[in-house]
């Protein structure tokens, strides 16, 4: 067995080393492109999903959100609740919000948007909106007559839904807000933010203090956003919150990203289709190369069999050649992914409606694609060589 493998390796090695150099380079280059295509497609879709997920966490809900108990409109005794949550190791920030819909009008334009109220200092521990001010300034805790707007609301900031905007509000303008409890107030626009995520850019923020005066409430909230130091372990945190006796409705960010799941699933399907096509192309490429190789070496295969070499030695030698093409292509493909494409995309991320998207190269996906390519190479190397040794020795040596 070992002797046979050694001989197969020897024949494969000689065929590669002494074969046509141009064909060898071209084959490996094609393999590396196929590998890059496989990993790149998966990575860009994963990056896209990752961006959406990060947007949901960083600009809308944090890692975990607490909503009022069933049949209750607000969370009560928020300060005590915050203390309990803060006692859990790994909690990085909490922001209590009131969330209310309101009609906002400016001159002859108006529209309905969600308004959230925040304690800016707390909010900055959970979301990153303060880092994305494109005009004016972020709220301060003392602001009661000022409002900040997401890019979609004022108009003139390049929003995706410009036709639904207020048509050109600028910093310092006064806009009217009619809350859904009937209270109407005017606010000076203090800032405009753009987090590159339409759902987040459709929200206006006022201070918690101001909202409590509008609603006539104290120490309550409609939503409690919690930021944790790590992402992916939300269920463990939720269990700890439940152990602390928190009875409110606790949800991980993934619940809010449910609509994104459909998109992610579609992306996965597209990536899978592209991967299957890529693997098919890889298989066909290797098959053709090995097939042409076996056709051109038909006589030699016959001679090897005539002098007593086992068929499996010959088949294995071609499989080793195919593996060499696939593994070399994979190594070069990995180099291209990690040392050329990934750094380039970090410097030049793609701008999507959901934000800036870079490659997310996941080791498991790389492993799956590597194994798939090698498996495809195995099959593509085996079939033509198996076909070649099916011939009779005489046909192989002297046949047409």
């Amino acid at each position, binding site marked *: 067995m070992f*002797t046979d493998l050694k001989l197969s390796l020897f024949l494969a090695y*000689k065929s590669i080393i*002494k074969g046509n150099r141009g064909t060898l380079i071209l084959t490996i280059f094609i393999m590396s492109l196929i590998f890059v295509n496989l990993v790149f497609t998966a990575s860009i879709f994963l990056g896209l999903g990752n961006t959406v997920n990060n947007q949901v966490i960083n600009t809308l809900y944090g890692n975990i959100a607490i909503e009022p108990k069933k049949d209750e409109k607000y969370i009560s005794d928020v300060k005590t609740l915050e203390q309990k949550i803060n006692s859990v190791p790994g909690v990085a920030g909490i922001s209590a919000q009131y969330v209310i819909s309101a009609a906002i009008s400016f001159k002859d334009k108006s529209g309905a948007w969600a308004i959230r109220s925040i304690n800016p200092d707390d909010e900055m521990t959970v979301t990153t909106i303060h880092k994305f001010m494109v005009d004016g300034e972020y709220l301060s805790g003392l602001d009661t007559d000022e409002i900040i707007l997401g890019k979609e609301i004022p108009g003139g900031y390049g929003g995706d839904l410009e036709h639904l905007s207020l048509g050109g509000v600028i910093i310092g303008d006064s806009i009217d807000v009619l809350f859904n409890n009937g209270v109407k107030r005017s606010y000076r626009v203090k800032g405009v933010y753009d987090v590159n995520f339409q759902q987040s850019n459709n929200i206006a923020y006022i201070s918690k203090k101001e909202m409590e005066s509008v609603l006539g409430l104290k120490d309550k909230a409609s939503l409690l956003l919690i930021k944790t130091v790590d992402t992916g372990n939300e269920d463990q945190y939720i269990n700890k919150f439940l152990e602390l006796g928190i009875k409110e409705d606790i949800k991980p960010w993934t619940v809010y990203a449910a609509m994104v799941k459909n998109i992610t699933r579609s992306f996965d399907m597209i990536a899978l289709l592209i991967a299957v096509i890529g693997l098919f192309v890889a298989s066909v490429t290797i098959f053709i190369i090995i097939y042409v190789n076996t056709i051109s070496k038909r006589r030699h295969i016959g*001679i090897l069999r*005539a*002098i*007593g*070499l*086992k068929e499996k030695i010959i088949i294995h030698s071609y499989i080793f050649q195919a593996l060499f093409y696939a593994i070399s292509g994979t190594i070069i493909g990995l180099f291209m992914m990690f040392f050329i494409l990934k750094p380039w995309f970090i410097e030049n991320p793609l701008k999507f409606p959901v934000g800036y998207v870079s490659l997310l190269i996941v080791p498991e996906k790389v492993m799956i694609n590597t194994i798939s390519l090698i498996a495809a190479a195995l099959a593509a190397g085996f079939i033509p060589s198996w076909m070649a040794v099916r011939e009779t020795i*005489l046909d192989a040596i002297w046949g047409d």
Partner: protein
Amino acid sequence: MNNVLSSNLENEQEVLLEIRNLTRIYKMGDVRVPALNNVSFNINHGEFAAIMGKSGSGKSTLLHQLGLLDIPTSGEININGKDILKLSESDKARFRLERFGYVFQEYALLPELTALENVFLPAMARGRKKKDYILKATEALEQVGLGVRLDHRPKEMSGGEQQRVAIARALINDPDILFADEPTANLDSSSSKQILELFHKLNLEMGLTILMVTHEPEDKKYVSRVIWLKDGEIAQVNI
């Protein structure tokens, strides 16, 4: 015609190959074309025999059956009383590797291998140690006068030299018999003479049994026996 033509020489010497009623019929559509018809003869240890005959007489077909390169329609090829045609395909391959040597008309070397590598390939396949098969291959190449061409690839050698490499390859596993299928057909007269003299030397000095297909009448002087074939049957045996 009686196809069992044995010689006194056969009777005196130890028989290596015992061929009995060997028949090979090719099918071309519905037409049956007999290439060998009920051929029987013996090959003795240490014999250098030639199979001769006109084109289409069945010379190469006979050699292919004896060398286990083809499957006869019927008949027996006995070695030590055992019919080797009944071996499985893998055992036949092993038999070819360990007991037979082959020299083909077109040299049949692997172009990507050097002379040394071409020669040691069958020994490597037998599982010999690297040191041993390299030494043995070197000796075999020296024996055929190519000790200085070890690292040359086939394309860097003349036809005669390539054929001598093929002979060295055939010798590497110390075969019981060497089958040569028109080994000089593609060579000039000088190279042909060298090859035949080499065969003669191997036969005389090493006692190597050789069965050679040839169509050159002058090759008769190198062999101890000529088996003449005509229309797939043994027509005559000359000693």
